């Protein structure tokens, strides 16, 4: 019997296709109400830290260097009040196979797929994760399909995504490219059904737990070299896996570093808009993913996302595109390091956050990404200009995404803006109640307090105000 493959029929088979392709029965962790057992899910379907280290280190993933950015620290101190300016560090995740921390997530997912006997893996991503899965699949001898959103309706590709396609193909994957739109998910489901391959989702427990080794390494490397944990860890935030995994690894190490998320501000640009697709100079690490995923994680391609960043972040800041470009250029010129701009989002934030801290304190950016044709400040700025975006020096606080890119006329103008995290917490609670349409139980209230890194009182008070 052949199945109907129109949009609605395929979407109606989503749950069935997902269960088969991820191999996790999420109902085991459900309470039947708002709450679900997150830690049980991570424990039973993930791997222990030691197992993950073994899996990752055996394929050349992890153990990346921590670099101290002395000249950038000096630049920050020149902009800071007297006595301020923490030492800035960065974990050079670009030195992983495939060039980003996503290798950690992919190593686990591909290992798991192979263990379960799948012949191949499929992943839906336009970002570094595609290359990471392709790289790991190449090592494991599995087939790999990457589905990416790449072109607008005029057939113009975002240079960064075109480069990702090249890299995925160079690593042996089939790259299925699509024009703009969330119906990418429809083609993704069709491919999973057709091939019977594993869904190497970004949001499974094994994927997210794969990043725990990153947080753990940060702590161990710091203790070994500086005798203490970093005071602050900054994570570039999109879907929330970087923040969640890094935080969980730090907690497993017993570290109490303050965790801050950072995203590029793309407010006002619709992520599914054909006309606005090529008006943005960042394809990840931006608010278009960061805000919705943090305030409601269960919008991913699995029923319960293992990435739940609001549980861990103490603060969330946004930076302007122009600020990230400036800091990326400064990194090359002052530290001799060329890194991809998206990964430098947290670095732009750290550059300012360091100025709020004392000189004997330390701040580290959790990861960097590789750079190359398309995926570099030069082509991104050039592409923006070709698309009618104005580029000039001024105050980046005045930048309007999709209209201009304002490079700071002086580095002291790099000043990330705080996201109203209390509002995000309230929003998560509200969405939970609206989604499940239940009177929250005591268990739900305790769960929501954990979800929002707040308190039972805060949740009760928010519920009352709804």
């Amino acid at each position: 019997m052949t199945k109907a493959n129109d949009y609605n029929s395929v979407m109606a088979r989503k749950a069935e296709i997902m269960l088969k392709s991820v191999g996790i029965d999420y109902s085991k962790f459900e309470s039947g109400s708002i709450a679900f057992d997150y830690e049980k899910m991570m424990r039973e379907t993930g791997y222990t830290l030691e197992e993950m280290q073994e899996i990752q280190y055996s394929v050349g993933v992890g153990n990346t260097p921590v670099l101290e950015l002395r000249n950038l620290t000096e630049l920050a101190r020149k902009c800071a009040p007297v006595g301020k300016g923490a030492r800035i560090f960065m974990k050079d995740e670009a030195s992983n196979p495939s060039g980003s921390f996503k290798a950690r997530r992919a190593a686990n997912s591909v290992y798991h797929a192979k263990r379960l006997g799948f012949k191949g893996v499929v992943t839906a991503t336009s970002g570094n994760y595609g290359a990471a899965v392709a790289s790991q699949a190449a090592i494991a001898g599995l087939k790999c399909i990457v589905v990416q959103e790449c072109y607008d309706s005029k057939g113009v590709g975002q240079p960064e995504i075109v480069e990702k396609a090249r890299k995925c193909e160079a690593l042996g994957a089939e790259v299925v490219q699509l024009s703009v739109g969330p119906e990418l998910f429809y083609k993704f489901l069709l491919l999973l059904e057709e091939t019977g391959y594993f869904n190497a989702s970004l949001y499974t427990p094994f994927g997210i737990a794969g990043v725990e080794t990153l947080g753990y390494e940060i702590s161990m490397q710091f203790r070994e070299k500086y005798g203490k944990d970093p005071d602050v860890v900054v994570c570039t935030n999109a879907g929330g896996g970087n923040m969640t995994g890094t935080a969980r690894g730090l907690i497993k190490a017993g570290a109490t570093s303050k965790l801050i998320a950072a995203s590029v501000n793309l407010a006002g640009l619709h992520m599914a808009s054909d006309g606005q697709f090529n008006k943005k100079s960042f394809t990840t690490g931006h608010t278009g993913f960061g805000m919705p995923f943090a305030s409601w994680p269960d919008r991913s391609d699995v029923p319960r996302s293992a990435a739940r960043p609001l549980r861990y972040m103490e603060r969330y800041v946004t930076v302007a595109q122009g600020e990230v470009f400036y800091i990326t250029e400064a990194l090359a010129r002052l530290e001799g390091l060329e890194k991809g701009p998206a990964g430098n989002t947290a670095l732009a934030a750290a550059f300012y956050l360091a100025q709020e801290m004392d000189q004997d304190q330390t701040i580290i950016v959790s990861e960097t990404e590789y750079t190359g044709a398309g995926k570099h400040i030069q082509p991104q700025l050039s592409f923006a200009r070709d698309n009618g975006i104005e580029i000039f020096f001024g105050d980046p606080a005045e930048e309007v995404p999709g209209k201009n890119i304002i490079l700071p006329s002086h580095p002291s103008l790099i000043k990330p803006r705080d996201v109203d995290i209390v509002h995000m917490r309230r929003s998560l609670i509200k969405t939970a109640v609206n989604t499940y349409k239940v009177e929250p139980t005591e268990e739900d209230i305790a769960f929501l307090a954990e979800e929002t890194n707040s308190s039972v009182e805060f949740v009760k008070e928010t519920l009352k105000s709804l």
Partner: protein
Amino acid sequence: MIKKGEWVRIHKTILEPSERAPQVPEDTKQVPLEMWDKGFLEADAELGDEVTIETVTGRKETGTLIEVNPYYEHDFGKFVPELLVIDKQVREIVFGGEK
């Protein structure tokens, strides 16, 4: 003519504008959802023909033949002079002028 077995790129429409998901913004609703893929051509054909390919994972896809031996053209873009201004500025602040 393009020979069977050659490495090609195809294009196809996956969803017509009328079939697009309800949540997509107006501008996106006006255009189809398109797809591109690469593989080995299954039978001799001309550019613009409807063809079948076998991809590197061994799947069959059909679509319009648009390129033979497709290659990438993305690069480092045109020169962006502002970057030189940043270079000079950060070096002056950290190292104190021409060094």
